[in-house]
Structures are given as C-alpha cells and as structure tokens.
C-alpha cells in the first residue's frame, strides 16, 4: 500500500467496502432462496419434525438417536483423520 494519500485510502475503502457488501448480500440472496426451496421441498410444514424417514412406532427412532450422536462425531473424526495421514 506504500503510503497512499488519505483521500485515496478513503476511495479504496469505499470501493472495496461497497463491493464486498454487494457481493456478500447477493450471495445471501441466492443462499437464502436456495435454502427456502430446499426446505419447502424436503421438510414441508405439515410434517416439520421428520428430517429422516421416521414415521414408524415410538421406540424405533429412539435406538437410532443414540447411533446418530456417535455417528455425527465418529464420521467427523474418521473423515478428518483420513485426510490427515501424513
């Protein structure tokens, strides 16, 4: 940046700033729109509690919950370590 004048610093900040604000909010528009579409397609409101196919009896999803916790973390560790073998 070799000591620009204050004014030019101001200009750069303005351009970078407004540019970034627009880029960020544009991406947010797309991300939000996509999220809404996916949510309304896969998790429609009538049945909001079923992220996985679980319309069976009560005890069934329970066993699966326990698995989910370990799965969430074990998968995380596995994937991480797989990618970190030196």
């Amino acid at each position: 940046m070799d000591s620009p004048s204050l004014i030019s610093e101001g200009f750069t900040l303005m351009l970078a700033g407004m540019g970034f604000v627009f880029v960020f909010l544009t991406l947010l528009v797309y991300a939000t729109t996509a999220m809404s579409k996916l949510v309304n397609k896969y998790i429609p409101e009538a049945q909001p509690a079923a992220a996985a196919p679980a319309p069976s009896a009560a005890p069934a999803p329970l066993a699966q919950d326990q698995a989910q916790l370990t799965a969430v973390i074990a998968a995380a560790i596995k994937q991480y370590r797989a990618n970190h073998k030196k």
Partner: protein
Amino acid sequence: MDKLINLFVSSGIYQIQLGQAVMIAVGLGLLFLAIKKNFEPLLLVPIGFGGIMANIPEAGLALSAVENALHLGGPEVVQQLSEMLGVSGADPKAIKEAYAMAGQAKHMQVTQMAIDAGFNNGMLYNFYLISIASGAAPLLIFMGVGAMTDFGPLLANPKTLFLGAAAQFGIFATVLGAVGLTSLGLMDFSIQDAAAIGIIGGADGPTAIYVASMLAPQLLGAIAVAAYSYMALVPMIQPPIMRALTSEDERKVAMTQLRHVTKTEKIFFPLVLLLLVAMLLPDAAPLLGMFCFGNLMRECGVVERLSDTAQNALINIVTIFLGLSVGSKLVADKFLDVNTLGILLLGVVAFGIGTACGILMAKVMNKFSSTPINPLIGSAGVSAVPMAARVSNKLGLEANPQNFLLMHAMGPNVAGVIGSAVAAGVMIKFVG
C-alpha cells in the same frame, strides 16, 4: 476550620472548569431530548446521565487510576510518573502521550504505581473497561436484538437484501466525506476515525459502538450520541428525501402480499447467514455470530427461556452499563472539539445518502422485477429498526390509504442490520 476550608477548596464548585460545566449542560440536554422528545430513551437516558457524572469535577469517575494520579496527585506523584515514562519535566500532556505510546508492560507498571499512590480507576471507567473495551456489551446487545428480530418478511422476499446493501453507501460516502474534510484542513480525522464516523450511517447503535471502540475510542462518545440521536430523528430526516426522489405514482405502487414463511426456514436462516460470514468475512463473525445466535434461540423453539432472558433481563442489564460507559466518554477534554461538530454533520449526511441510495436502488429494482416494488421501502434499508419501516409505511399510506407497506419494509429494514454489520467487518479488516 481548616477541614471546612479544605472541603470547600476541593468541592466541585470551586474546582469546576468551564468545559465540565458545558458538558454537564450537554448531558442535561441529552436527557431532555430523551425524556421529553423520546429520542431513543433506552440509550440516551443512561448516556446523558453518565455524561453528567463523568464531568463532576474532582470525582474522576470516568478516568483511569493513572489519569487520576496525574490530575489529583501532588507534584511528587506526577514526578514519579514522568520518570517512569521517561518524560523530562512534568507536563501532564507529555506524560499522557508517553503513556499512550508505551506498551502493555509499562502500562501495568505505571498503573501499579498509581494504585500504590492511592489512586484508583473511576467507577465509570471500570464500567467502560468491562462493557465496551472488552467488546462484550455491543455483542450481547446484538444477541438480544437478534432474539427480537423476525426475519420472516426478509425470507418472503430475499431480494430486499439488495436494498439493505444499497443503503450502506451512506457509510462509505461518509468515510470519503471525513477524509475530504481532513484533506481540506477543516477537520483532523485519520482513516480509522473516518471509518468509525462512517458507520453512523449504518443507523445501528451497537454496531457503531463496536466499531468505534475498536477503531477510534476517543470519538466513541460523539459517534454514539450521533448514531442514537439520528436514529431517533429518522422520521424527520427521511421523508423529505423520500418525497424528492419519488413521484406520486411510484409512492402509490401496491406490493403483492408476502408469502407464508415456514418455521423451518426461519431456523435455517441464521445458520445460512453464519456460514456465509464464516466463509467470507471472519472479521464480522463476532457481531453477526452473536446476532445469528440470538435469532436461532428465538426461532428454534426449544430454548424459550434463554431467548426470553436474552431479550429482557440480559439486554436491559447490558444496556444500563453500555449507556453509562458511553456517557463516560463525554468528558470535556475529549468531546468539546470541533471534530465533534464534524461528526454530527457527517452523521446526518450519512443518513441522508443512505436513504437516497436505498430509494434509488428500489426504483431500479422496480424496473427489473417481475413483482412491483414500491420505492418507499428502499429507505428502510438504512436499518434504524423499526422506525425506518414505519416511515415507509406512513408515506405509503399518505399516497394510497389502502397501501400497507410495513411488512414489506421490514425486509430491507433487517437487511440493513446485516448490511451495516458486513460493512463494519470490512472496515475492521482493512483499517483495524
């Protein structure tokens, strides 16, 4: 008798400096605006009162132990301070400058000496350290604001985010204004100062305080006062600009009803926003992270009691300390400066430009959009939630008594909060 004379000599009335008297009057003025004119009273009552307390002569409530030692200590103490800081002579100003330049280790050493000499941080100074210097208070307020914010209207019409983006031009134009005034020799702002002043245009109190505390703490008092005052003045500042930039026909445009937004979408939105911040602008992570956290607590439906506390007890407690701490920055030395007038001037310009850009952006979008967009909702993009949205609604009703814009304007209104937090992140990144 000696004691009584001593008491009088050390009493405020004998010791008061003109600047302090003036600042006490300013504090009373802020209380008047807050109580009588209803200018953002939740912040301006504590700020005004804190400002008065900060200027009580000889009490040193807003000063650090070192400043108190320098001010109230005898020549011996001052001598010790100047020696420790390697200043020749005992000029208080030179000692303060040397202290500001010194590193943490020296700061600690000098503070220890001041305490040994019997001086302590003032009450308001401690409040400031804990609530603002640590960054905690604005973040916790942002969390509470997140817990109070309904993103439904924004999710129903995500395009309104563009309005929230456009209105941030007020921020950056003001940065340019501030450096321009400095180049002309009228004011004396660094680029950091200019950035902190610009953020007034974000029309968002906690964001402004957060940025100012990082980039220009010496201007924090004036910036916070300007930000909250102009937010209260939004119903006066915006209408003329809105009328000037729109035709009667444009103001009459009716918008199609917003679609229903599901609970699940509302739960996902803060996470989407957080991930985008994580990927693109880590420097905005504290502000937007806490905001999203508050909003997730609100929407997820399983932590009602935490959400309630974030919206009530916690935000109220933090507001009290934040307000008093901002008030502590209204000490005469730092506030009574021509730069303060510059800040007030630039702040209103920032609000105006932001309003105008929001309106113009809405006009452009109306041209290209499949569904009609009333340009009046553009001005809500500056945030100032929910006042700006109400102003849009009011002008809409004036033009067309069946035209309720409030919910439509809430989209850009909350988009403006996100927009100015992003702008804050960019500024901290570049000049912080």
